């Protein structure tokens, strides 16, 4: 099994689960598996050409998959895959934004 770490902004699609386990041989398969389990997440992960969106950064262990083989990066059971979100800051509802 592959463990996928789900970042806070995407947990609303995984019933607030922070870790999801999938069977996969590559990173692409793992992310596909995640999207299959949680269909609402699909559009956040893939563009219309089924490529992983550019702002979705994926790490295998502590390494960016871009430094490995990208979505084709091979996985083995026990691997940990993290989705790293861009987060901007702590402004809450009704407050002014700092620019």
């Amino acid at each position, binding site marked *: 099994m592959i463990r996928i770490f789900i970042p*806070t*902004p995407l947990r609303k699609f995984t019933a607030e689960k922070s870790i999801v386990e999938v069977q996969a041989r590559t990173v692409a398969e793992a992310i596909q598996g995640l999207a299959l389990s949680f269909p609402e997440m699909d559009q956040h992960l893939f563009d219309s050409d089924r490529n992983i969106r550019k702002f979705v950064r994926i790490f295998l262990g502590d*390494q960016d998959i871009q430094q490995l083989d990208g979505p084709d990066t091979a996985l083995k059971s026990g691997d940990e895959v993290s989705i790293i979100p861009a987060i901007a800051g702590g*402004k809450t509802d*009704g407050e002014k934004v700092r620019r």
Partner: protein
Amino acid sequence: MSQITFSKQELERYSRHLIIPEFNIEGQRKLKGARVLVVGTGGLGAPLLQYLTAAGVGTIGIVDFDIVDESNLQRQVLFTVDDIGKPKVEVAKQRLEKLNPHLTFRTYNTHLNASNALEIIKDFDVVADGTDNFPTRYLVNDACVILGKVNVYASIFRFEGQASVFNYLYADGSRGPNYRDLFPVPPPPGLVPSCAEGGVLGVLPGILGSLQANEVIKVITGVGETLAGRLFLFDAAGFTTRILRIAKDQTAKAITQLIDYEEFCGIPQQVMADESQSGARQNGVREVTVQQLAQLITSGADFDLIDVREPYEYDIVNINGRLIPKGEIKDHVDEISRQRQVVVHCRSGKRSADVVRELQDKYGFENLYNLKGGVLAWAKEIDHSLPVY
């Protein structure tokens, strides 16, 4: 560096630094000689500014355009109840001068934007980014890359925090990865929930801002190993920490000039400012689309959202609007802002249009917008995870 000297009072103040063998008076001299710009005096800026001031960073710049609001006090621990309504940079300066009178503070009570960023940042050695929105994140990053400044980064969302040191200058003259190497493009507005929807645990910026101050001090003094080339992740809810390696994106285009960051982040400027642009009128009621609303939320625009449906409908699905059922509007007229832009929505847009018309005709409101298609359109076009009913 040795020309920087300390008074007796300063030596006593900094004695706990001076007796750390690898820090000693050389580290303290470097701090005194350093100029650090803190962008944003919010949740991250509060601990950052206080620790950098206490530590003795010689020149500290403070940029923010905002005034202190009651809702800031949940996490922006630099401010007190007495400060509400005052400019943040002024309050911060007064507080910090009392904390350490040996330093120089420069305040910039302004929005940091593409037309002033280079001018402001150029006079500093290190920038600490404590802002809260994507356009400013990219602006600060690009300006730092162009000017060759180190950008000490932290960011927070709900229980989750990130920190890194971008554009670090290594001894061989090369530069470490920057924000764009990690996030080449921002998420489009409305796709990823923003903090405007999500909120943040008040203590989290205290933790991340303190880590940021730690990195600033390490960058200046050369003591320890900075987070350059690494991304620190902290989940306060599960108390998990991770450190990931970040590499330079060799395919990335060189950053040579500042751009329109609102546009880059997919945020059209002043979506509702000009009636001819948006605000299409439908029987005297101005309308905004769900796409425009998504952009407003993501950009952190200053507006209110009112939901005029019934409580049981709100329980089925809501988009964080303030619930004032249509039938109760007249009892709450005084609570609806006449200054801020206010978007009113219901299920499909009909009831909210009636409410907007009533508020305009009977009470003279001029700042109201009806959400076209209501929460149904939002669920269909923006957030597919929401139920329709």
